[in-house]
């Protein structure tokens, strides 16, 4: 019975639980940075908007690829990387916190 219930209930439901957006970045050491994004319940972040800002201006943007990764060329000077999955789901990481 229990199994049956779950089977059917699994049918109904959409979207993940209230999850925290998560992003971590890694300096590849070759002038590029790779950021991985997703959600705290293991949900993938693929398709989520990414953009790099310098002095509050977007200098480049793109989307998380199907591996939920985003690789970009390290800009000169101060910058921050943003993972933007909508209101309440924005993660921003400062360039200086991404150590080689």
């Amino acid at each position, binding site marked *: *019975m*229990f*199994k049956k*219930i*779950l*089977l*059917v*209930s*699994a*049918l*109904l*439901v*959409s*979207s*993940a*639980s*209230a*999850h*925290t*957006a*998560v992003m*971590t*970045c*890694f300096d590849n*050491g*070759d002038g590029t940075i790779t950021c*991985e994004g997703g*959600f*705290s*319940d*293991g*949900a*993938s*972040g*693929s*398709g*989520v*908007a990414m953009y790099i800002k310098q002095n509050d201006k977007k200098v480049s943007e*793109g*989307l998380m*690829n*199907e*591996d*939920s990764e985003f690789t970009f060329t390290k800009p000169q000077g101060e910058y921050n990387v943003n993972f933007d*999955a*909508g*209101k*309440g*789901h924005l*993660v921003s990481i400062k360039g200086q*916190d*991404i*150590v*080689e």
Partner: protein
Amino acid sequence: MNNIQVALVGQPNCGKSTIFNMLTNIKQHIANYPGVTIDKKSGSFNYKESKIEVIDLPGTYSFSSYSVEEKITRDYILNKDTDIIINTVDASNLRRNLYLTMQLLDMHKPMIIAFNMIDVAKQNGLEFDLKKLQKLTNAKIIETVASKKQGLDEIKESIVEVKKSQLSHISNALHYKELQKYIDLIKELIDNKSLTLSKHYISVKLFENDAQIIEYLKQNSNNAKQILDYLEKLKEEFKEKFNISCEQYIVKTRYEKADEFLKACSINTKKNERTFSDKIDSIVLNKYLALPILASIIFTLYQLSIVYGYELTTITWPILSWLKTTVVSFFPQENIDSIPYITQFAIWMMNSVNALLNYLPIFFILFFLLAILEDVGYMPRMAFILDRLFVKFGLHGESTLPLVLSGIFAGGCAVPGVMATKGMNDKKAQMATMLTIPLMNCLAKIPFFTLILAAFFQADMALMMFLISTVTIFVALSVSKVLTLTVLKAHETTPFIMELPSYHIPTLRGIFIKVFDKIWLYLKKIVTIVAAVAVVLFVLIQFPGISKEKKEELDNKSKNMQSIFYKKIQTNKYYSHLDEKDELKAFINFYNTYRSKRMNTTSKEKAKEIDSKYKDINPYFFLFTKPKRDKEAKKINRAFKKLLKTRKALFRETKDEKVENSALGSMGKFFVPLTQYAGFDWKINVAFLSSFAARESSVATIGALYESNKEDPRSSSIASSSSYTPLGAVAIIIFMALTPPCIATMIMIKVQTNSYKWMFFALSYPMVLGLLSAIFIFQVGSFLNLSGVEAMVYFYIFVLSITMLLSLIPNYKKENYV
């Protein structure tokens, strides 16, 4: 050492729990009553050669409607092992509290009355002649101020004393005036030898038509039939003579008696002065200020718990992430072409548990604030203010908070929402609230709405967002009304008590005890239920697995991927370090764990530490991971990254294939004949299903399904790569807005209702409703050739009108005598 069993009874907000904490001094044990989800709190202490065990029974206003709490409380008091009742009354609100006392008197048990909040009462200018009250009730009366530990020793002392002089302290039963004659007649018939309950109590309850007692009599008495026949006759007779039913007469008499007692023992010195609580209430309950004050309190609560709590999760998440990595590291390592089942299972379980542990910061803040509001005495007032509006929809003033937390005006969260229904006294409204909570705007749906809206409604985004987030409220009100008129018809409702407790300053200790109790309970329940649900889902997704042909195809792709890699590095000077399969496997695992360790570090020192550690583990692997200026190592790094990318793609393909083949996937296809009317193809169905089960956010699934193309800004990619129109998008959005948010909510509903049946219901009706709405929008919209925004607006107006109409239907009410 002799054992004394004490039961703590009292109405909500009378300070009972504070007395309990004061007596047991945190040495408490919380369990569940068998078969229900009400917490059973007990604790014990030693005093003068006696081991005294205290049970903190659920707060109840009276014993008139039979909610589970009341049943438990009654059974405990009447249990022959219970030696003494401690009846906590709020001295500043004596009249209401005395009503329960009248009912307790009928039970004929030794009673101690903890005359609590005597300080507030004195401030309000009330003084009491407790000697008189003691005489009237024959209960031992102790003045207490639980929050300041006043009266603690006296209570302990009188427990021992009352136990010693057991018989002289049996409380005085009420005398029921005109009805007493009849009660006595029945009493004489009752054969007392085999009965554990007092004759008086049985007799009174028989006149009250108490099903439980009638049953008890049938089980334990030889002449039950004779008694019951005679009872019917007497009741008829009484009704004829006095023109009032026995039940009503008993209730009336209790109120009169309560008033008599009150008059006899209270000396009001400042009769015409307004009390401190009255002064506050004149502002808080003021006709014009009540709603703004309520709104700002609720907004603050929401802001602090959901919004800031949510921000806190970004700080606490790394801890959970570490926990997961640590646990998973004990399982077998990944292979080149697959991840071992057992490891997959571990990852799955950790993800499931973590998804729920992630709520802890939100809960902590929420419970803390709720405990303050409860202890201050604002909760009943909040219910009082909104009751009139909610009652129209079968809800209750107490539904306010759960609904707000679940997202009434912005993204909320259904899990704390369901948790917050715990304290509701009105069972029917509690169920109705719990069942409509999944319709509220869950925060997790926002990324999804953002994605779809950006794709189809760039210009009207704000308007659409507003419509989406408010339409669900009206749907919820309507649904609640319908549910209370149908499936919830038989559930208990409690009368709305108009009298409000005095305000008082909460104690920090009491609040912390409350918070930790709740958190601990949550953890215990969550872990066990999550484990069960997650295991079942895992099985549903993993099996039957992928077909033989597909498996071969994927194996070939994997072999191909490896040979490409080896071809690239054949001439490399480091080739010998990777030429074995096991070495490649080891390197994959090395690379992944190193990356995940480094991902979460922001300090240079920490990064250096990790680097040197991994250099020690394997200097060559480290070199391939970070080749710096080493040309040969760079080549390996590049080839390896390509391999990883392909490997990930293969894993994804395997997973998608698995999902599509799984029980869930088959269902997605199975429903196409139905969902096509809403414009959903099988891909969307599978996305909806797998997004729930495989914990892939719908953003990702939808994105993956329609292969968003990287050069495009994402908005147009969905719009262009799919055959969806804005109208179809509205159908999808409405379906999403009405379907339950997540497994976590499902589990919480199971925890609160203790029934898989209700959990299933809470999940299935929104599904049906969502699908019907989507079909309705899509069909009507197509027929009338409406644009997406038009369809949304018309649907909104439609829902609004239904809500208005439903509010006019009177509620079904069971007869209540209070």
